[in-house]
């Protein structure tokens, strides 16, 4: 009907996917842009988890970062500025069989998308959300974003941003039903990878803020952090993000942090001396709206007709 096929529920034979199976177009980001790393990590994760490309959906808003779905050879939805999360929630709501990833930017998520961000946290629908935070509006050529540092210069604030930045971690941690909050850096692929993996495996809304280099517009933001490892605080814990010893050893500045402790997570999030990386908070048993929203999916047509007829009965005279 309407030109669509109807053989619902057909099984596909087991297949093996190589990295190239997730690689689409040549990315059009600047060289050195942190978005490349995230794309790479996501492709490796998909390969390692053997995600069927046709069962994977990457949703994004608008921004440099939000171009990412175009470079994944999976289903994708490059949506509207700020609206990645409602679109992703809609996708998720009635397709529990799909793996949903969301790519958003600091403008997309923390400016125009703020309302949806807060509410998506509360809905706690299973999806891995990556906020690629370069502290700037990249695509529109360097305007202040809500995470731009105080006095950070941009084309809309040539004399520097007049406001302290929002802390996306703190805000996320303040919302009811928050269930997974992590932070990572684009320039440490193993940590980035391990964080995405944990997010993907989390049974709920997994929010990952990726500190993302934008060499084109904000080299001064993360280049120093990249150079001086002491500006990163590596969070270690047996329930946290696990990376190879060789990798974790690189971080001299470490702290043990129990991700089941919300108050501690909030305190860590606001450390002014260094960027914490790792798992700040996780509560896997948080109620999930997507389990509710998917109810009744298997109602057979006859049962649906019967239900409607019963309702009509109540209007019959």
């Amino acid at each position, binding site marked *: 009907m309407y030109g669509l096929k109807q053989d619902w529920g057909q099984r596909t034979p087991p297949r093996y996917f190589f990295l190239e199976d997730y690689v689409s177009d040549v990315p059009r980001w600047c060289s050195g842009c942190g978005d490349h790393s995230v794309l790479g990590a996501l492709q490796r994760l998909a390969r390692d988890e053997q995600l069927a490309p046709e069962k994977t959906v990457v949703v994004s808003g608008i921004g440099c970062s939000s171009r990412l779905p175009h470079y994944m050879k999976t289903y994708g939805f*490059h949506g*509207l500025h700020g609206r990645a999360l409602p679109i992703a929630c809609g996708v998720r709501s009635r*397709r529990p069989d799909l793996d949903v990833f969301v790519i958003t930017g600091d403008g997309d998520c923390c400016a125009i998308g703020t*309302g949806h961000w807060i509410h998506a946290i509360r809905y706690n629908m299973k999806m891995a959300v990556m906020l690629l935070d370069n502290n700037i509006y990249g695509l529109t050529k360097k305007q202040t974003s809500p995470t731009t540092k105080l006095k950070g210069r941009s084309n809309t604030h040539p004399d520097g941003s007049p406001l302290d930045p929002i802390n996306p971690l703190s805000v996320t941690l303040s919302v009811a039903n928050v269930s997974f909050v992590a932070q990572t850096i684009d320039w440490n692929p193993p940590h980035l990878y391990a964080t995405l993996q944990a997010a993907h495996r989390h049974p709920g809304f997994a929010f990952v803020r990726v500190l993302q280099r934008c060499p084109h517009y904000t080299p001064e933001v993360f280049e120093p952090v990249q150079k001086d490892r002491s500006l990163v605080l590596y969070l270690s814990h047996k329930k946290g993000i696990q990376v190879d010893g060789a990798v974790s050893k690189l971080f001299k500045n470490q702290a043990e942090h129990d991700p089941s402790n919300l108050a501690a997570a909030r305190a860590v999030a606001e450390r002014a001396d260094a960027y914490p990386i790792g798992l700040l908070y996780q509560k896997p048993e948080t109620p999930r709206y997507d389990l509710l929203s998917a109810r009744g999916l298997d109602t057979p047509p006859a049962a649906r007709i019967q239900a409607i007829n019963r309702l009509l009965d109540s*209007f019959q005279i």
Partner: protein
Amino acid sequence: MELAVAEGLHRIGPEGHLPEHPQPVDQHIVEIVSDSGEGAQTAGQLFGSISARMGNGVWTVEIIPAEIEPPPRSRPGASGNRIRLGRTRVTNSGDTADVMVAFNEQVLFGRIDSGALRPGSRVFMDNKWATDPQPEIRQQYAEALEEFRKRGYLVQEIPLEEECKRLVPDPRRGKNMWTLGLLCSLYQRDMNIAREEVKRVFSKKKTDTLERNWQLVQAGYEWANTHLPLRYQISATPSAEPTVVMNGNQAVALGLMAAGIDVVSMYPITPATSATHYLAGVLERAGGFIHQAEDEIAAVNFAIGASYAGRTAATVTSGPGLALKTEALGLAVMAEIPLVVVVVQRGGPSTGLPTKVEQGDLLASMFGQPGDAPKIVMAPSTIAECFEFMIEARKLAETYRGPVIVLTDANLATGQQPFPRPDVQEKDLAPPIPQSPWPQGQPPYAWDPVTGLSPRPIPGQLNGIHVVTGLAHDEHSHVAYESGTNQRSSVMRSRKLATFFRTLRPPKIYREPEGDLLVVGWGSTRGAIEEAVDRVRDEGKRVSALHLRFLSPLEPGLREIFSRFKKVLTVEINYSDDGRDEAVPPEARRYGQLAWLLRGSTLVDVDCWTRVPGHPLQPSEIENELRRQLDLA
């Protein structure tokens, strides 16, 4: 003049010379009005459904105050129901009331302000206020009665509260049923049917609630039998086919279910919300899901996400919500994502008149999006169509791969009408989503160059992988900024409307196919327009009506139809400058929304008569305008 104070059963006002024998009437309009919370709405609806079951044509409409809990005995607090009965089908709420039962005089003033009465309207009024302990209230009541009589209403005081007190401790919870009894007597309703309907309403309550209410009905019935010499007789032919009675929002809700809509995503807004209240209680029974989003923007994007993922989706809103959905509807057009958008129109612009009717969102639906965003726009004109159009809209959204806007309004939303029970069919349910492999190499927008149509790959389908985007794109959904691609994809999107157009047939003219004046309408005004046309045509005047269901694209053959009439006039509930207004130079005149479309499309000098009164247009108002137009012609 001494005030008439009801002392007993036989006191009848001086004007109240009531006929002894049942008076046959073709149609009648009854209103019950009370303070809110006194249950006039329940009584009115019951009276409507009893009458419908007896085979009368019926249209009922709620009288709703703008405030949540308006002060008692206040004009804007009038709450209740208007029931229009007819020998045959009734299509609209009509003109002024023939019979009015008012629980206090202030709410009656509220109805007078709304133009609901005329000299000769018969008013039954609770006489309790005449003996109220507060002297101001007694005085208000007395003065009101005098005023009513001056206005020529036939006022009859009735011992409403007094009689109810005999049966229930709190008469505020009883007057409505007693009034129902009175009306059953007045209109000689079948008391077996009445009993069944009362039972149905109270079926979920305790048994003694039902019994107490039925006693009240009987008491009212018997009191009227004994004390009112007056009876009306409206003959009726009970229909053989099963019939349902519901309002337009319920019909929308059930229609969405019958269409197999899987996800309804909404944000509360009057007057659309009640459709979603109903769905909130029942959609799950048919396996569907309703999502209350954090705002309208989220609501529509959630629906778009669900639809993209292959689930049929709808969003239900009203004007301010439509405004907020503007951007996302552009995305649905650009990315060709099916979506049913129900807009229950209310008074605008801005927050406007939230509870009141208007047909003001037609042009915003068509042209709201920056850039070219062709989409189908349709408007039901009856409660039955509110149901049917949902199925139609869902199918069109899928076939033509984009949003379909269905414009109902506050009049349809709250109006109730009996109609043949729809036959719900499996074939009308959305088919399950395809999950078999997509034809290898077929692009996600394999536009047919002639029709613009293309099949749609759904996540889960092997080989169908693509990235949907609101950016300009080619048939592979690849972002493409080249001139040729942008021109071509724009053609493909527009072409779909032409393709749909070719499946439409010219609309049917109501009454003769030619004449002096053709009245064109759309949406909820149909009944009132056709009734007005009947009245004038029946006098031999050459007037006909045309009602459009599709506004985008417009139905075919209009220019040819218009050419058979000397003059074409739209009648709409939206704003236009009055053609007679001297302050408006003719060149600068702003036309009604449909008139605008018709002028641009047919180049016929279509005139319009439109008003924004916040209430449905009355047939007599339209009738007057038709006469005026015919006199001019």
